[in-house]
């Protein structure tokens, strides 16, 4: 059984009962079948009602759901001939950032993603999606590679943030992030960034300074985690739910603030309930975004990208 979030408990109980009845069901057990149908309908309505009005904090939990598809799932499903490239040419390979060459709809592209991992082993390998300077330096290398060969860049962002560690600081975490943002801004190619789960602060924007920034419906994008914000401003991490609301970190909030371009609807109950449908929706949205930039040359793309980010904070729509 999949892990359920706290607010999904009533749905989980219904689904548990349905499962139990299914086990009991014998051929011709008409009453049981009716009961299953009734409960299934009820569970469906409950799910629909719950997900129609998720709070910001609930969305943060969905965005971090362990079964949510992560970056590699998107790369594997949407990109053919995926050819991973590794290393920052200076210190190390950082598996928190995955990427390389591939084909998207047949067209050669460079892809980048922050990968959280799906089980204990892979989470450790990918350092829970928290990159170190060598990761951002690899990203910068691949962004520049994309620029030199005129390949569009597709990024898939899902990170709690850059790794906070002694070694990361010693090797210049701040500089590595700054250079990655700079590389995005200078790239003479279309950049489509998609926030697929958590867009955690500087560690996320390092790969999300794009011409088009898309967000999955239940993903979040924030300057600080709700817990971090709560412990600083409320002096109580338990106020995370209040902080999440105040930060306006949901996809819809960011779209209204014109900080992102598109919200990609998720399957009912979140991307983890229908992974193929979620990935297909992202694929379609990326395709549309990429097509909208067709025919623009490098200088035009750079100029428009600059204008777009320069405007952020100059005028705030209500």
């Amino acid at each position, binding site marked *: 059984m999949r892990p359920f979030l706290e607010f999904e408990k009533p749905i989980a109980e219904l689904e548990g009962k349905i499962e139990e009845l299914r086990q009991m069901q014998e051929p011709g057990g008409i009453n049981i079948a009716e009961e299953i149908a009734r409960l299934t309908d009820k569970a469906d309505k409950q799910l629909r009602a719950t997900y129609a009005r998720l709070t910001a904090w609930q969305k943060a939990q969905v965005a971090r759901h362990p079964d949510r598809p992560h970056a590699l799932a998107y790369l594997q499903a949407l990109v053919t001939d995926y050819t991973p490239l590794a290393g920052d040419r200076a210190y190390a390979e950082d598996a928190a950032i995955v990427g390389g060459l591939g084909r998207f709809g047949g067209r050669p592209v460079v892809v980048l993603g922050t990968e959280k991992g799906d089980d204990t082993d892979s989470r450790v390998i990918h350092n829970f999606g928290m990159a170190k300077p060598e990761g951002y330096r690899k990203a910068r290398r691949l962004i520049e590679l994309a620029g030199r060969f005129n390949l569009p860049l597709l990024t898939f962002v899902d990170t709690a943030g850059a790794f906070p*560690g*002694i070694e990361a600081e010693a090797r210049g975490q*701040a500089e590595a992030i700054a250079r990655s943002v700079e590389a995005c*801004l200078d790239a003479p190619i279309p950049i489509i960034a998609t926030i697929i789960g958590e867009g955690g602060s*500087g560690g996320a924007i*390092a790969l999300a300074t794009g011409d088009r920034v898309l967000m999955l419906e239940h993903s979040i*994008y*924030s300057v600080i985690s709700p817990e971090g914000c709560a412990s600083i401003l409320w002096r109580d991490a338990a106020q995370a739910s209040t902080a999440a609301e105040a930060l306006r970190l949901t996809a819809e909030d960011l779209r209204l603030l014109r900080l992102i371009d598109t919200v990609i609807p998720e399957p009912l109950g979140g991307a983890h309930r229908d992974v193929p449908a979620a990935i297909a929706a992202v694929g379609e949205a990326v395709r549309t975004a990429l097509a909208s930039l067709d025919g623009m040359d490098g200088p035009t793309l750079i100029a428009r990208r600059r204008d777009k*980010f320069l405007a952020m*904070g100059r005028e705030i729509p209500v």
Partner: protein
Amino acid sequence: MSWLTEIVRPKIRSWLGQETRDVPENLWRQCPACQQMIFHKDLDANLKVCPNCGHHMRPTAMERLAWTFDGGVFTRIELPKAPADPIKFRDQKRYADRLREAREKTGLEDAIVVAHGLVGGQPMVVAAMAFEFMAGSMGAAVGEGIVAAARLAVLQDAALVIFTASGGARMQEGAVSLMQMPRTTIATRMVKEAKLPYLTVLTDPTTGGVSASFAMLGDVQIAEPGALIGFAGARVIEQTVRETLPEGFQRAEYLHQHGIIDMVVKRGDMRETLGRVVGMLRGVRVEPAEQAA
């Protein structure tokens, strides 16, 4: 150029005196590093550096400008207004109220002041972040200030110097503050594309989103002695790695050792250093004989 405003020389004295104006106890200040009591006039005369141990105390942005420009003469520019309270944020207090209080306390509009003038004989635009204004945090107004400073440098064919002093992004502006990272990075690109020098002076403290954007993109990066500079906060790191942090971690000297900044420069040597570096980057020749004299 309606956003160019007053020449501020006559006001500098009163700014410097402001903090210690009427309360007698404030005539003496204790050095937070060596605990020595220092007479305020001695401290001001020494650019707020402890005469006993050399500890660099945090100045205000206006003090910074007065110390940096030749003869303390500079022209401050009025910054374009940024939208206040873009996400209508409230924690235990409303952000709008916090902003108002910070404005009353500091006499500044937000956490940055921009001015132009001569530094070591070189024309420069200097942006000084104001730690005294909400811990120097970067929201839309600071972003706007950096962009305005960069535009002014290009317009005046002057070098850009930014003194950073910031706890990071201003979380009360949510993702709007995060977007100031690319926005300020674009500002640094404009200066570099105009082939003008862009220097950063990292002062205590420079952390978070400020360190991970324009602060680390200087052609030459200078830091003040002992300044705390880093991306992640010390407490977060300790909680993550469950290790004690090494001595001097994230301090200016540590960054110098690790190859992240070019030099650590004492406050008293800053103006000369900036003038010398910018002069050379701009191809100013000084004949050896001239130099000896």
